[in-house]
């Protein structure tokens, strides 16, 4: 576990513990100093910068970004009061804390001093732009010609040519993040699909998510009814069984708990029916719609594929309907590994808040609830295993194949030729553009933005 993950989780546990103890307003402005006292070894340039980043991370945990800070002297307890009054979440779910940005150099390929100036010069031969020449017994790249394709890297027998990455920009599948005029990171929210890849990739923890944690904790502490809707990707995220995890959620104060996999059962049924309807009316292709980052990516970057994206609601949307119906008085909280779900929830009246697995882990740790030791009765109505499998790459395809069963294809029910995209990146975005143009075989494409499916989500607890 790297230092950024560890610090983030320690901070969450601390904040939650103090909030539930009822003294966060008194302690919150002390937390950054207590976690990084003057005697501590700084992880950035100095403990003061470490403290500043902890402060902004606490703001993000309360639903505010650095962008909303108009008075730098304003104490954290004042933001806490605003969060409890519901004045947070006025901006996009991702926040860029430029204070922490290292201002990395632009991604480029360069020759390191491991170059020995060999006789064969495969780098020179492999370069499609004739950008490499040997000067003073060493390969040199002409920046004005180089297109950073990396061919020279792969052929150098000494591994002397390296790529200097710009982690956030390299991770973004849609070119939504980059540096602005002053060399610091900036997200273009007209392009952003909220996949969270930048959040995971930035080695300086500059990208933060505006959390709803405080609002959820406030409801739990006041013993208001709260329904937890646990995403199918929960498998393998916590120690113990799902029965034990549900018992832990109950101890944590959730008044009712449901599996979002129950929603995935409905998504499967409707999506299979929708597939046949579309094929019957002459459509050539349908894509899945359960991944909100993919739906956003289609809308913003591949408009020609939008008519082919399934209109079936996501498992979260169905679960929200079920939860509202069962407990209309309760707040609904989706718990999963996803940042894009925060965005989807903002548009769904049946989902009030989103909590990440990481935040749930921190909540259970703060409450000292030992999941693995709990006595737990088996779930009354467990979801089908195909629905629990929805969160893995190819899981949607398998669920739909199971739903269709082994009925023989006929005129109204053509055979499904299922394909999948396991993780969005620039390459797979290009593949999807080709699918939209009908240039690739297949009539159903499952798309998951995260590699491995939701189980590889940016806010998963164990991966």
């Amino acid at each position, binding site marked *: 576990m790297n230092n950024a993950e560890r610090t983030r989780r320690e901070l969450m546990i601390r904040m939650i513990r103090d909030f539930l103890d009822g003294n966060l307003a008194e302690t919150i402005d002390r937390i950054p100093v207590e976690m990084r006292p003057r005697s501590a070894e700084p992880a950035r340039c100095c403990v003061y910068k470490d403290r500043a980043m902890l402060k902004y991370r606490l703001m993000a945990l309360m639903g505010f970004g650095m962008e909303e800070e108009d008075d730098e002297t304003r104490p954290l307890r004042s933001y806490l009061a605003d969060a409890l009054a519901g004045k947070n979440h006025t901006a996009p779910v991702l926040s860029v804390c430029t204070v922490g940005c290292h201002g990395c150099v632009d991604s480029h390929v360069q020759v390191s001093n491991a170059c020995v100036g060999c006789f064969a010069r495969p780098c020179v031969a492999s370069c499609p732009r004739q950008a490499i020449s040997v000067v003073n017994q060493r390969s040199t790249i002409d920046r004005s010609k180089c297109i950073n394709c990396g061919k020279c890297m792969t052929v150098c027998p000494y591994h002397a040519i390296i790529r200097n990455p710009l982690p956030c920009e390299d991770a973004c599948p849609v070119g939504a993040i980059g540096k602005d005029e002053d060399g610091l990171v900036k997200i273009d929210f007209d392009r952003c699909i909220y996949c969270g890849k930048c959040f995971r990739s930035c080695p300086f923890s500059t990208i933060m998510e505006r959390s709803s944690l405080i609002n959820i904790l406030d409801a739990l502490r006041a013993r208001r009814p709260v329904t937890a809707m646990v995403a199918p990707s929960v498998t393998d995220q916590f120690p113990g069984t799902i029965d034990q995890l549900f018992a832990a959620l109950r101890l944590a104060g959730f008044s009712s708990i449901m599996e979002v996999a129950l929603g995935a059962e409905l998504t499967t049924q409707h999506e299979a029916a929708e597939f046949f309807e579309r094929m019957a009316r002459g459509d050539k292709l349908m894509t899945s719609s359960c991944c909100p980052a993919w739906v956003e990516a289609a809308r913003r970057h591949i408009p020609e594929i939008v008519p082919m994206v399934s209109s079936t609601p996501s498992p979260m949307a169905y679960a929200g309907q079920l939860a509202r119906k069962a407990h209309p008085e309760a707040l609904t909280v989706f718990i999963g590994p996803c940042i894009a779900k925060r965005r989807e929830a903002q548009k769904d009246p049946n989902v009030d808040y989103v909590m990440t697995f990481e935040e749930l*882990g921190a909540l*259970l740790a703060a409450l000292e609830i030992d999941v693995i030791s709990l006595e737990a009765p088996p779930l009354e109505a467990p979801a089908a295993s195909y629905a629990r499998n929805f969160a893995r790459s190819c899981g949607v395809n398998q669920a739909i194949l199971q739903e269709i069963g082994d009925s023989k294809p006929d005129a109204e029910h053509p055979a499904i030729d299922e394909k999948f995209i396991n993780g969005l990146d620039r390459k797979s975005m290009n593949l999807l553009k080709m699918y939209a143009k009908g240039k690739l075989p297949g009539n159903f494409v499952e798309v998951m933005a995260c590699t491995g499916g939701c189980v590889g989500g940016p806010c998963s*607890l164990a991966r």
Partner: protein
Amino acid sequence: MSEPCKMKVEICLGTTCYVLGSFRLSALEEQLPPELADRVEVAGAACLGLCKDRNYGKAPFVRINGNRVVDNATIEKVLDALKEELEKCNE
């Protein structure tokens, strides 16, 4: 010849240890070098209660033979501790 040294490793799967990284330690068993492989028994454990006792440093915790505690545990740290224990036992 005396009995070969046997050692027991308990990886704390209590929630705090788990959240702070003990889930990564489950790969320990596969990474045991040959001299340790058939002597070491690795098991997950419910909360060892160490996170409440600040004297022990920080989670995640691993306990060896019921008495030696490795804090801020990583696979490397646990392997080093196991090798030390093996030496002690062989003396």
